[in-house]
C-alpha cells in the first residue's frame, strides 16, 4: 500500500473535519438527543450492598403507581460467562450500585419514583473490597476464575531468561512498589440508550457504545434473540475512552422495549454513569531490578495485581494490555512479568484509555527514573542505554520492527530543554522536568466496509465507523478520496447523518485504537473492489483488458493507452447494455457500483508456559510514545502547575496530522488528570465522590502548552502506513509528571494521583 509515489489528494493533509459544522452549530445528534413518539422512560434500581444474596424482589408497590408500565429483572436475561456483567443481578449482587431491577414508565419522574418503591430484600455477605483479601484462602469464591488462584479471573506470565540468576549476578537490587487508583472515564455524555420494538419481534437500539457488532451480538445473546433481529445504530458519541464497553445496559433497555411494546429511553445520571461504565482498574505493581556494576539492568521482575472488581469485563484482553506494555521498550536479558486480575466486590474494572497498560507504564517509567537517579545517571541516557533496537527480540521473543524509541526520546528531551540550565523560579515555586517512554500494542479485529460509486463519481461509504471525537469519519473519508483520487467533497460517510448501523457489516468499533489500522484497510479494499467492477464493465467499452484500467479523478482510463478513457456515468449506459445486466437500469446517466470487503489481520500464538511467541507476531504493530514534561511545584501547598509537555508519537502515517495532534493533546490532558487529580474514592464499596465537586477534572486554566510531534515510521500493512493513534499518548504522562515532581522537590511519589497533599506530606 506504500507504493504510490504521486502527490496525495487527501491522505496526509489536515482536511477539515466533516462532522465540524454539525458540531459547532449544535446540530450533531447524540443518543440523548433522539426521541421517539410514545416512548417510555426507564430507571434502574441499584444495589446498596457491595455483596449480598438477593432474597426477594417485590415490585408490587411500584406497580401500583399510575404510569408504570413494565419491569424487568435478572432472570429475564440469559446467563452469560464470567467475562460479562449480567444486565441485572440474578441471585446475588457483587458490587454496590449493581443494577437489579429496571422499570419503564410514562415519564422519568414516575420511573424514578417507581424504582424507589421497588423493594429488594438482601442477605448481606462479607464484602471483599481488596484484591489481597479476595485472593486469600477462605474467601468466598466470587467467580470460578482460574484453578490455582482464588478469585483470580485472568492471569498472564511472561518469562525470558532467568531472573533469579540475574538477581544473583547483580551488584545492586532496587525494588519499588507503585500503586494506582480507580478513575472514571468521565466522557462528557452520560450513558444513554433508546430501544424500539420492531414488527419482526426484534428491536432497534440506539446506544452509547463502542461498537455496533458488540452490541448486536451481546444483546441478542442476553435476550436469546436471533442476532438478525437486533439492529444497532450508533450516532455521535460524546466521548468514549472505554466507558461504553459495558453493553449489558443496552440489553436492559431492549428488554423493557420488547416487554412493553413501546420505545424505551434509558438515560443514566452522571453518578450512575460513573458506576455503570466501570472504572480504571486500581493496581499495585512491584518492580524489582538487578543492576550490574556498569549501570545496566540485567534482571527485572514485575508483579502486577489489578483489582478487577465484580466481573470480567474483557479481562483477557485487559491483562494482555498489561504484559504487552511491560514486555516492550527495554531490552533486559532476564525478565519476568506476572499479571493478576482479581475479582473483588467493587465496581467492575473496565476499559479506560490504554487500560492496564497505563498503570504498567506508570510503574515502569517511574522505576526507570528511580534507578537512574540512584545510579547518578541521566534518566534520558539511562533509558537510551536500555531501549530495544529494531531487530532485537522483545521480552516475548518477538522481533522489534519499526520502533523509534531513540528518536522519540531525543526529540522530546530536546524540545523541553532537558539539559538546559535555567534560572530558578521565585519562591515557593520549584521547577522540575521529567521524561517517560512507552509503546502501545495494536489490536487486531475484524471489520467490514462497503462503498457505493455513483454515476457522478461521488462515493458513499457504509462502514460501521464509530465517531467518538477522534475524527475517524474524516480519516476514513480521506482514505476513500485518495483511493479514487477525487476531492474530499465527493465522498460521503453515510454514518454522518444517522450514525453507523450494525447492518453494514462487522465493526469492531472504536476500541483499542484499532479503527484506522483495521477498518481503514477494509475500506480501501472495498474501494478497490468497486473499482474492479467498474473496470470489468468498462473494459469492453474501452477495448482493453480489465487489469489495464485505472479509475481516478472521476475518469476511467487505460493505463497503457491513456487516451482511451470515459466517465463513470457513461459506464452505466455502456454497462447495462453490454452486460445485459439484470440490475435495474436507472434513468440515463445514473446508477451505482458497489464494493465491499472484510479485513482481519492474524496474529501469532504464545507458549502458555512462558508467554514466548511461537509464530507470527504478538501485535501487528506497536506505537512508540515519548513525553517530556516541565512543571512547577508550589512547595508550600503542593500544587503543581504543568507548564509544558513535549509529546512524540509514532503513528506510522498521519492520515490527518491535525487530528493526530488532537489525539496526542487529549491523551496528555487525560494523563495529567490521572497524574494529578482523578481518584474515585470508595467507602465500604460505595463511590463517595461521584460528582464534579469532589471528582476534580482539570480545566482550561490548568492546561499546559502541549507540543505534539508526529513521527512516521510506516507500518507496512497499515493504510498508507498508519498505526493507531487513540490511546498511546496517555501511557507516559503520569510517570513523566512523577519524575518531574521528583526533579523539583526531591520527593518520590509512587502512588497516583500525585495530589498536593501527598507532595507536602511525604
Amino acid at each position, binding site marked *: 500500500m506504500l507504493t504510490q509515489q504521486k502527490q496525495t489528494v487527501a491522505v496526509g493533509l489536515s482536511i*477539515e473535519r466533516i462532522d465540524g459544522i454539525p458540531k*459547532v452549530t449544535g446540530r450533531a445528534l*447524540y443518543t440523548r438527543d433522539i426521541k421517539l413518539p410514545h416512548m417510555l422512560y426507564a430507571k434502574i434500581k441499584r444495589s446498596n450492598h457491595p455483596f449480598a444474596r438477593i432474597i426477594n424482589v417485590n415490585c408490587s408497590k411500584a406497580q401500583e403507581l399510575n404510569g408504570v408500565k413494565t419491569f424487568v429483572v435478572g432472570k429475564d436475561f440469559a446467563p452469560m460467562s464470567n467475562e460479562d456483567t449480567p444486565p441485572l443481578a440474578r441471585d446475588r449482587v457483587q458490587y454496590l450500585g449493581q443494577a437489579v431491577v429496571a422499570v419503564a414508565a410514562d415519564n422519568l419522574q414516575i420511573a424514578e419514583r417507581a424504582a424507589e418503591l421497588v423493594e429488594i430484600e438482601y442477605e448481606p455477605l462479607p464484602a471483599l473490597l481488596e484484591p489481597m483479601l479476595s485472593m486469600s484462602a477462605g474467601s468466598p469464591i466470587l467467580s470460578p476464575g482460574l484453578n490455582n488462584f482464588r478469585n483470580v479471573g485472568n492471569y498472564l506470565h511472561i518469562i525470558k531468561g532467568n531472573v533469579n540468576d540475574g538477581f544473583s549476578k547483580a551488584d545492586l537490587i532496587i525494588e519499588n512498589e507503585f500503586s494506582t487508583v480507580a478513575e472514571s472515564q468521565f466522557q*462528557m455524555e452520560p450513558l444513554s440508550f433508546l430501544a424500539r420494538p420492531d414488527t419482526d419481534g426484534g428491536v432497534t437500539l440506539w446506544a452509547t457504545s463502542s461498537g455496533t457488532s458488540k452490541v448486536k451480538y451481546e444483546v441478542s445473546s442476553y435476550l436469546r434473540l436471533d442476532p438478525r433481529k437486533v439492529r444497532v445504530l450508533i450516532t455521535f458519541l*460524546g466521548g468514549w475512552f472505554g466507558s461504553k464497553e459495558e453493553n449489558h445496559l443496552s440489553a436492559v433497555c431492549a428488554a423493557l422495549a420488547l416487554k412493553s411494546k413501546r420505545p424505551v429511553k434509558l438515560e443514566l445520571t452522571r453518578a450512575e454513569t460513573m458506576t455503570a461504565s466501570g472504572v480504571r482498574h486500581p493496581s499495585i505493581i512491584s518492580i524489582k531490578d538487578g543492576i550490574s556494576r556498569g549501570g545496566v539492568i540485567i534482571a527485572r521482575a514485575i508483579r502486577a495485581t489489578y483489582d478487577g472488581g465484580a466481573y470480567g469485563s474483557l479481562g483477557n484482553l485487559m491483562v494482555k494490555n498489561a504484559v504487552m506494555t511491560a514486555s516492550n521498550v527495554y531490552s533486559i536479558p532476564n525478565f519476568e512479568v506476572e499479571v493478576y486480575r482479581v475479582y473483588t466486590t467493587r465496581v467492575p474494572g473496565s476499559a479506560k484509555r490504554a487500560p492496564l497498560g497505563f498503570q504498567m507504564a506508570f510503574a515502569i517509567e517511574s522505576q526507570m527514573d528511580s534507578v537512574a537517579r540512584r545510579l547518578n545517571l541521566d534518566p534520558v541516557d539511562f533509558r537510551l542505554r536500555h531501549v530495544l533496537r529494531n531487530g532485537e527480540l522483545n521480552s516475548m521473543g518477538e522481533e522489534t520492527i519499526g520502533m523509534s524509541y531513540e528518536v522519540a526520546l531525543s526529540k522530546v528531551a530536546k524540545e523541553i530543554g532537558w539539559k538546559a540550565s535555567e534560572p530558578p523560579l521565585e519562591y515557593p515555586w520549584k521547577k522540575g522536568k521529567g521524561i517517560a517512554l512507552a509503546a502501545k500494542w495494536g489490536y487486531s479485529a475484524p471489520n467490514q466496509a462497503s462503498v457505493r460509486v455513483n454515476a457522478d463519481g461521488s462515493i458513499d461509504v457504509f462502514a460501521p465507523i464509530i465517531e*467518538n471525537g477522534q475524527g475517524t469519519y474524516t480519516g476514513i473519508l480521506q482514505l476513500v478520496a485518495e483511493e479514487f483520487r477525487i476531492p474530499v467533497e465527493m465522498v460521503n460517510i453515510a454514518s454522518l447523518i444517522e450514525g453507523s448501523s450494525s447492518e453494514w457489516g462487522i465493526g469492531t468499533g472504536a476500541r483499542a485504537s484499532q479503527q484506522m489500522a483495521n477498518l481503514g484497510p477494509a475500506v480501501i479494499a472495498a474501494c478497490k473492489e468497486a473499482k474492479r467492477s467498474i473496470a470489468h464493465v468498462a473494459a469492453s467499452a474501452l477495448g482493453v483488458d480489465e487489469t489495464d484500467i485505472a479509475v481516478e479523478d472521476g475518469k476511467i482510463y487505460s493505463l497503457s493507452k491513456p487516451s482511451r478513457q470515459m466517465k463513470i456515468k457513461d459506464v452505466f449506459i455502456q454497462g447495462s447494455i453490454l452486460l445485459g445486466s439484470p440490475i435495474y437500469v436507472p434513468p440515463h446517466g445514473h446508477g451505482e457500483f458497489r464494493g465491499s470487503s472484510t479485513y482481519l489481520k492474524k496474529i501469532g500464538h504464545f507458549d502458555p508456559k512462558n508467554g514466548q511467541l511461537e509464530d507470527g507476531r504478538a501485535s501487528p504493530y506497536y506505537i512508540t510514545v515519548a513525553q517530556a514534561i516541565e512543571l512547577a511545584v508550589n512547595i508550600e501547598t503542593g500544587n503543581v502547575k504543568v507548564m509544558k509537555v513535549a509529546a512524540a508519537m509514532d503513528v506510522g502515517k498521519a492520515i490527518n496530522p491535525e487530528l493526530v495532534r488532537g489525539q496526542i493533546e487529549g491523551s*496528555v490532558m487525560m494523563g495529567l488528570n490521572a497524574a494529578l487529580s482523578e481518584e474515585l474514592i470508595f467507602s465500604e464499596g460505595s463511590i463517595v465522590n461521584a460528582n464534579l465537586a469532589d471528582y476534580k477534572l482539570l*480545566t482550561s486554566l490548568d492546561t499546559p502548552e502541549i507540543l505534539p510531534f508526529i513521527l512516521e515510521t510506516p507500518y507496512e500493512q497499515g493504510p498508507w502506513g498508519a498505526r493507531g493513534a487513540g490511546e498511546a499518548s496517555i501511557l507516559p504522562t503520569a510517570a513523566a509528571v512523577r519524575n518531574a515532581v521528583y526533579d523539583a522537590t526531591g520527593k518520590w511519589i509512587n502512588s497516583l494521583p500525585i495530589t498536593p497533599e501527598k507532595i507536602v506530606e511525604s
Partner: protein
Amino acid sequence: MRIRTVVNNETLDLEISLSNSLLELLRDILGLTGTKKGCDFGGCGMCTVLVEDKPVFSCITPAWRAEGKRITTIEGVGIRDNHHLHPIQAEMLKNFAFQCGYCTPSMVLVAKSLLQENPSPTEQEVKEALSGVICRCTGYSRYVKAVLAAAETMKKGLELDI
C-alpha cells in the same frame, strides 16, 4: 404555569412546570437539543446557555427564571442559513478545536459572551472564560487559540456578529 420568554430572538409563550429546569425547557419542551446535559447538579458546563448574554448553567436554573429574559442557545448562534458560521464557530472548525463536540455548543456560547464584553481578551482571560466548561477530549489549547483568532476576525469586522 405559563411564561413568556425570548429564545434566540423569538418571543415564546410556554407552558412549563415549576420543577422544570431551563435545560428541560430547552431540550424537552422546545426540542433545542444543542444544549447538552453532562452532570447531575452543575459543574460540567455542558448545559451552558446565555441569559441576557451571560453564561449560566441551565441545568440548575429554574425554567420560570426565563420569564421576561433573553435566552441564547447554540441554535441561535451563527446559522442564518446552513453555511453561515459565527467567526467563533468558524475558527473552532479551522483550528480543530473540538473532538466529540459534546462540549462545543457551550464553548461557543461562553466565547461569544466573552468577546461581546471584551473584544480583545488576553490568553489568560480566554482561559478564564472557558474554565466553566469541561472538555474531556482535548487539551483545551485549540479552543483558546480559536477564540483568540475569532477575536481578531471580529475586530477586523470581517464577519458580522449575529
